């Protein structure tokens, strides 16, 4: 690589980068990119990966209590997908020079965040449905535009993830639908879950646009394609008729159709709660991180054993 052409001046490389972005082409791992672009992507992809693996916990909480074998299989497969999606995303971050070990270290020491939605508890079986319908629904609304993100490996991981997640939201909706048509107790369970998960789901789109300083740069770089508020509105518009079809109500008195805007108006999100949960004061912040750290620490001897075995048997085919 030490040929004369690699002495191409920085400015020309920057122009090349801008041209690639402007032409809606993808940036690939070994391309030159501005440090801030790289840092923004690493932060965002890592946060996304962390959210996938921490997000396994609230749902895994119900695997051993799933009330039918069909539901149990679905839930195991879904939680498994989340581990898989974490792996795809750590892989994408790795192409930017951030190793998984380093990113996990930052998660475990609290220097990296994950989506604060997972700091809410899953108290009943209906929560599994509400997570699928609302939390995965919000995630998909966020993620579909990321399939066109300017960074190639991230966009490709998101294509795969979106394809696999299509069943996640549907199974949640189906689960709630079964409860809503079930006994009085099941129906009450479903409504209670929707009441608790609705507002945190709206928070998943992030702070309002006027309080989201990074949005403009991310949109210029085509990492992000829509603002937080646009996506939040899109999500509300999608959910209202779906809630009606379930026969469940969304816990917002201000929800009404706005003929002029062609959108549903909705009430104010409690951003104080959002900031508090993000700052670590949510009901499950400690618990989630503890479990994650414990799994990692208790797994150390296993990872070390496999590495030691590989060193002893370099051919990798001892059998």
């Amino acid at each position, binding site marked *: *690589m030490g040929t004369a052409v*690699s002495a*191409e001046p920085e400015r020309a490389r920057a122009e090349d980068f801008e041209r690639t972005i402007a032409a809606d082409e993808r940036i690939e791992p070994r391309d030159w990119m501005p440090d801030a672009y790289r840092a923004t992507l690493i932060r965002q992809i890592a946060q996304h990966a962390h959210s996938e693996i921490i997000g396994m916990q609230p749902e895994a909480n119900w695997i051993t209590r799933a009330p039918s074998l069909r539901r149990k299989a679905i839930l195991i497969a879904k939680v498994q997908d989340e581990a898989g999606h974490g792996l*795809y995303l750590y892989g994408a971050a790795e192409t930017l020079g951030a190793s998984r070990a380093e990113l996990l270290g930052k998660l475990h020491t609290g220097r990296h965040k994950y989506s604060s939605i997972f700091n809410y508890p899953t108290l009943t079986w209906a929560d599994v449905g509400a997570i699928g319908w609302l939390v995965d629904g919000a995630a998909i609304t966020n993620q579909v535009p990321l399939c066109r993100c300017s960074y190639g490996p991230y966009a490709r991981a998101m294509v795969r993830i979106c394809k696999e997640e299509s069943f996640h939201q549907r199974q949640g909706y189906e689960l709630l639908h079964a409860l809503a048509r079930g006994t009085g107790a099941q129906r009450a369970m479903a409504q209670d879950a929707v009441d608790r998960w609705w507002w945190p789901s709206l928070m998943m789109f992030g702070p309002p646009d006027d309080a989201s300083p990074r949005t403009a740069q991310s949109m210029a770089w085509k990492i992000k394609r829509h603002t937080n508020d646009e996506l939040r509105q899109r999500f509300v518009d999608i959910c209202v008729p779906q809630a009606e079809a379930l026969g469940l109500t969304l816990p917002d008195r201000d929800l009404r159709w706005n003929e002029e805007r062609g959108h549903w108006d909705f009430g104010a999100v409690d951003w104080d709660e959002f900031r508090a949960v993000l700052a670590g004061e949510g009901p499950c912040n400690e618990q989630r991180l503890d479990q994650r750290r414990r799994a990692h620490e208790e797994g*150390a001897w296993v990872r*070390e054993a496999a590495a030691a075995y590989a060193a002893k048997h370099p051919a990798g085919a001892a059998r």
Partner: protein
Amino acid sequence: MSGGDADWPLWEVFVRPRRGLAHTHAGSLHAPDAELALRNARDLFTRRGEGVSLWVVPAAAVTASSPDERDPFFRPAADKPYRHPTFYEVPEGVRHL
């Protein structure tokens, strides 16, 4: 933080989606050795029946062209249109050519 992950090298995974198609790059994963890399790849990238064959390659073994050189490296191939069939004129009425 106890280690472990840092010692597991990165592998690139290639999947043949079905017979008749080439292996294509699917992503990467960590594994201590080739055997586990293959098994991890099977579990991670083909759990929906996406493949009939897998390759795993140590990421460190891949030699890549430099993106900085992409112009000089690939441009010479761009100005030789006579390598493509559309370059040639075929007299009217001639078929199967």
